[in-house]
């Protein structure tokens, strides 16, 4: 890993304290976010805030299983986010497909297609686990270890190849987009 300049170190420490997330609610994990956000656990105290668009967001929160159709959108959304960007895989579905491991339409592991910085295991993980994961991610960012976005840029061909292998093409032109 390259040595960070002083500016990058400062920037990273800012980034770690201000995490704007785009929660891509693909599955049941979305249910766990309201308690995390509201009074009981209050993730805003860590500077974590929900954002509405990928352009503004820092982290992409994938909350559950991803089928091929959704994955295309996730990849597209991820590519629309501004660097530096981080991904949290949420629940076992993103890790190994979970209970959908043998589905013909659901992928098995997310990091094969986009770089994941932190996984949260569990089906479902509780809010405590989520906050723990956020804290871990913040630590990683501060240290400059959360470099998924760099990996994606460096190994872009590899990721693209995986995407194409599983999805055929990322961009699909169907009748609903005419």
């Amino acid at each position, binding site marked *: 890993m390259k040595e960070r300049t002083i500016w990058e170190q400062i*920037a990273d420490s800012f980034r770690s*304290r201000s995490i704007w997330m785009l929660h891509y609610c693909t599955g049941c994990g979305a249910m766990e976010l309201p308690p995390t956000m509201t*009074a009981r656990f209050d993730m805003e*105290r860590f500077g974590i805030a929900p*954002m*509405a*668009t990928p*352009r*503004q967001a*820092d982290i992409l929160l994938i909350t559950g299983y991803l089928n091929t159709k959704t994955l295309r959108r996730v990849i597209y959304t991820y590519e629309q986010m501004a660097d530096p960007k981080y991904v949290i895989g949420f629940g076992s579905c993103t890790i190994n497909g979970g209970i959908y491991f043998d589905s013909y339409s659901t992928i098995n592991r997310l990091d094969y297609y986009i770089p994941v910085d932190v996984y949260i295991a569990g089906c479902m993980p509780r809010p405590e686990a989520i906050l723990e994961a956020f804290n871990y991610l913040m630590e990683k960012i501060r240290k400059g270890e959360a470099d998924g976005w760099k990996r994606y840029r460096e190994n872009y061909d590899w990721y693209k190849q995986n995407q194409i292998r599983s999805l055929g093409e990322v961009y699909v032109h169907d009748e609903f987009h005419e």
Partner: protein
Amino acid sequence: MVAAYKALFNLVVAFFLVLSLEGIGRKITARIQRRIGPPWYQNFIDLFKALSKHPFSNGWIFDFGVLMALGGTMATAMVIPMGSAFWTPFPNSDNFFVIMYLFAVGALGMAMGMVGSGNPWSSIGVSRALTQMLGYELPYLIVISSTIFHYKTASIHKLIEMQRGGWNLLVMPLGGIIAFVSLMGMLGKKPFDIATAPAEIASGPMTELSGKYMGLLHIMHVFAIFVEISLFVDIFLGGGNFGWYLVKFIVVWVLAVMISSVLPRFRIEQMIKFYWGVPLGLAFLNALFVLLGWTL
């Protein structure tokens, strides 16, 4: 030259004051919602983080719009008197209408740049923002017009001097209240945050903003809040020396935040109907009182 330093001082004060107040506002909202909330300096972190990111630009008009928004609002913030004639950078040009229209440059720049991003959400957001302006500006301008008619001056620092005998808020309480209601709309606080509405239209005009564009517009927003609240403090609360000015500024801000944190959001035509209903009527009533000389 002194004027130039004062103007720059305006910018510095505005930047630090409003950014901290925004953090405090988040904290207050959180406390009202029984949360802990972020630290008061959270917005500084957010701002610098946004500036440090590697953004996307949707064409030159997008860049130009952001620059125009920030530049125009900064120009406005430089004219604003901070509570007294001493802290008035340009005593010859602090006319209310000049400030109001100079302020519109920023709004226009922002609207133009954001629509230039090519995103339909942004366009919808801008359309709402402009419509909203039609709502809150009218009662506000009527109230200010009656104030100007009453004191025979539109120069802000002269208005402050005129209020030595008593705050304008106490002279025309009705007008003060209406101006505050309009101020809520101007600040884009909760019942009136129709333009950004993140849950409906993906934060409206800001949909395509990333990295430093977000950051620069955040700075613009900071100056905008500074201008709006300062105007209210100067025109209705009688300004005061620098310390008093800050106190009044903070009080107004905290009040606005507290009100906004317990309210849901209007629909766009509901908002127009709201402003064109009671507030506008009361603004005219206030104007009538001023015409008849029935001021306190």
